[in-house]
């Protein structure tokens, strides 16, 4: 029988409630049920893992049988895994101003309808609004007898408006997610904001691609921090040899104005009261004044790689924990937005995000703005659309020349290894010198 050095169980139960309104029609609205657990056993070498739907904690010998099944899987492994000893424990989940669970579904539907209705203006051909609310109860136990449990609600909405003129179509959208409030209230004008942007984009043109100065707004600069730095600092990638940051600890890879942080304890959308291994969570300064300062860790990567602290193991229900970002942001600088525009002189201002991707081993990233504006003679010019930005991690960070003092956080989901987890990204406005901008424009 396989030796069992350690085990833990993470069991998630709860509900997922959604409302989907498409062109004023309620397509669907309702609730589904989640009940999934993952049991990990550390054998004499590596991990054996069992994922079980509809889990109820067996007692006595029955639980031992489960451990033995996982142990049997662990016997296949040949990589010696060591776990760092780290502090465990749960910090309080931030309190709610208004708990979405206390609001009935009909009211949620009415509020979402109001947002969708405000998007139906002249020039708009299609509108779609969605609300999603996940109420999860998480229970954790391990070999040491540690037991933690917490409840958390994550909810949010999106509104997408499509404008059409003469066969040309453009879309505008607004997304908002929260952990501390029922966020469908007081957002009735967001539909109108999405619609106005979609209509405005009909007159925008894609820019001609090339090398130019670029100002990133807080949302896009947050995605930049996430894609360009965050993923490469995940220590499982460092341990595997799949990150360009692997041998850069202590090196200056950005200007002194750049400090990049990940903090699961921050009461934002990527908040975790403890990580998926039961470890205490806290702030990690990945880049400190331009120097590589720490990696993001679980217990295993901390033991293998070092430089930082555990607390960044995250997982979807019933999936193995991975090293993940949580709330990732560039710290404020001391410039004003006007100073940044003036310093840019000629270039492009990029706003909003359509997502991004990174190859951390190659050190190449790409992300796409929702829209932007040409910057001409230090002033904002014509609107542009379908513009992306790519670069090399170790070169591009040096090109951040100014950071404003207006940081904002934006919520989203991040995919890795087939798992999607809630995150937030943020930054102040930043100025990139000589950025590689992609666009299909010809003039």
């Amino acid at each position, binding site marked *: 029988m396989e030796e069992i050095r350690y085990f833990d169980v993470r069991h998630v139960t709860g509900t997922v409630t959604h*409302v989907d309104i*498409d*062109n004023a029609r*309620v397509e*669907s*609205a*309702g*609730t*589904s*049920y989640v*009940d999934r657990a993952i049991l990990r056993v550390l054998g004499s070498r*590596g*991990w*054996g*893992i*069992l*994922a079980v*739907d*509809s889990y109820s904690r067996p007692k006595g010998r029955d639980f031992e049988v489960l451990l033995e099944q996982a142990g049997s*899987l*662990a016997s*296949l*492994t*040949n*990589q010696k*895994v060591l776990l760092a000893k780290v502090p465990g424990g749960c910090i309080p989940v931030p309190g709610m101003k208004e708990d979405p669970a206390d609001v009935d579904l009909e009211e949620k539907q009415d509020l979402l309808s109001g947002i969708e209705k405000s998007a139906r203006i002249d020039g708009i*051909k*299609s509108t*779609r609004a969605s609300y999603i609310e996940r109420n999860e109860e998480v229970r954790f136990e391990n070999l040491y007898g540690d037991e933690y449990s917490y409840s958390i609600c994550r909810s949010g909405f999106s509104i997408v408006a*499509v404008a059409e003129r003469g*066969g040309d*179509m453009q879309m505008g959208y607004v997304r908002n997610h929260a952990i501390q409030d029922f966020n469908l209230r007081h957002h009735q004008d967001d539909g109108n904001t999405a619609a106005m942007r979609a209509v405005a984009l009909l007159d925008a043109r*894609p820019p001609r*691609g*090339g090398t130019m100065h670029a100002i990133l707004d807080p949302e896009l600069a947050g995605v930049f921090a996430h894609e360009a730095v965050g993923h490469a600092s995940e220590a*499982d990638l460092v*341990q*595997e*040899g*799949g990150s*360009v940051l692997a041998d850069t600890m202590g090196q200056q890879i950005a200007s002194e104005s750049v400090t990049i942080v990940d903090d699961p304890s921050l009461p934002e959308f990527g908040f975790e009261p403890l990580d998926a291994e039961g470890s205490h969570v806290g702030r990690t300064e990945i880049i400190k004044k331009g120097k590589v300062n720490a990696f993001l860790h679980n217990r295993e990567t901390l033991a293998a790689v070092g430089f930082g602290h555990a607390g960044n193991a995250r997982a979807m229900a*019933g999936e193995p924990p991975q090293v993940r970002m949580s709330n990732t942001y560039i710290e404020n600088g001391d410039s004003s937005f006007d100073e940044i525009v003036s310093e840019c002189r000629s270039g492009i201002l990029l706003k909003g995000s*359509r*997502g991004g*991707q*990174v*190859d951390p*081993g*190659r050190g*190449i*990233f*790409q992300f*796409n703005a929702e829209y932007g504006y040409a910057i001409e003679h230090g002033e904002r010019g014509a609107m542009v659309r*379908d513009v*992306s930005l*790519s670069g090399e991690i170790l070169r591009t960070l040096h090109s951040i020349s100014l950071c404003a003092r207006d940081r904002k956080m934006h919520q989203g989901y991040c995919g890795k290894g087939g798992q999607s987890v809630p995150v937030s990204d943020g930054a102040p406005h930043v100025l990139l010198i000589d950025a*590689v901008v*992609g*666009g*299909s424009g010809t003039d």
Partner: protein
Amino acid sequence: MRWWVAVELIERIVKEGGRRVDELEAYQFSGYSVSARLKRHEIHYASGTHLQGLSLRVIHKGCIGTSATMNPERWEACLDAAIASATLATPQEWKGLPVPAAFDPTPVNYDPGVTPDAETVKTLLGDLVDGTRAYPVEITSGSAEISRYSGTLANTGGVHYGDMESMVSVGIETITGQSTGYEFDASWRMDIDPRKVGERAAYLAYSSLDGKDVASGSYDIVLSPIALSQLLGGVYLPALSGKNVHAGRSRLANLQGQQVMDRLLSLRDDPFHPRGLSSCRWDGEGTPTRIVNFVEQGILREFAYDLKTAYRYGKQSTGSAVRGGHGGSPGIGTHTLTLDGQRGNLMEGRVIHVNDMVGAHTANPLTGDFSVELSNAYLMQDGNVEFPIRKAMLSGNVFDVLMKTGGLSAGERVVGSMVLPEIRLKDLAIIGN
């Protein structure tokens, strides 16, 4: 849950549903998979997953409600939730769930020889690792998985279909210097070659080493099936969904009967494709499947419909309902997308061959505009690699670039729910460094 217990349960649910609402559809599934993951060249973890669940859909006075649970024994709460869901939905024209049809009972993507077995998974990983030894590279990560699932679809109209699926898949990432390579394969039969997959991943990393910058300009581009699948999946397929067409979210909406692709190309969904991972005789709501000819020799012929969208807009279902994962409700999708047309040598003259792209999912799904970073790309002359490209962006419009192509490759491969060849695209914009 044993199968006869499952059969009894689903019949009970259908019976109870029929008593409370006009119609009910139940989909119950269970399965087991074994997987293992490499960290560098060693096995880091092995896992076993027991999945089960129940997805319900009710229709009452034209209102559709849904719910799902991972615990089928909680079906009564799930049924209550589905009925409550229907009370909130906007009523629509509805002409009934499918009635029973005669099918060949043999599953189309199930091989009884594919058994979720830990030792077999270990062998697959060993062969993956062996394959990489063809080139001097390091493995960063890899995985192998074998799974087997069974599902039952039943409704109050008398449909009671059972099906089984099997799947074996492998994938591996390699690196040398700052050059990376990734390759994968999947099949419902035990016919994949993990050594070949490992060797290809190693080749991609090794051959992309010491890349050079390419001058900005206009180039003919040959996209691998992987790169092509990203552009088709992110932009073209959503535009072929009947729902998006009628909701005003498809650029193809008013172009039926008109040329939308190169006359050399035909795009279809072939649910009977022998290599398709999602091939099926009936769709996610029990409608018999058929080949859907989206584009025939460049002309847009038809869009995809499920029952809900078809009834709403006076169309026929094309058997295109798919479930988003085993627990998901049915929605419009494709089973096995294929692209056919003139085959030949794509590598004549000067081309850039692109194996993969970084950021393809950021393409504009409405307009088709994209601007992506290349991955494992090579400048080639008459089929010979001149040099690997270190870094470059590719920009264009998915709808426009498919209007003027240089043909398709003879070979094709399975990429998710697509079976695709390579394609040569003409005069695309490259932004070099």
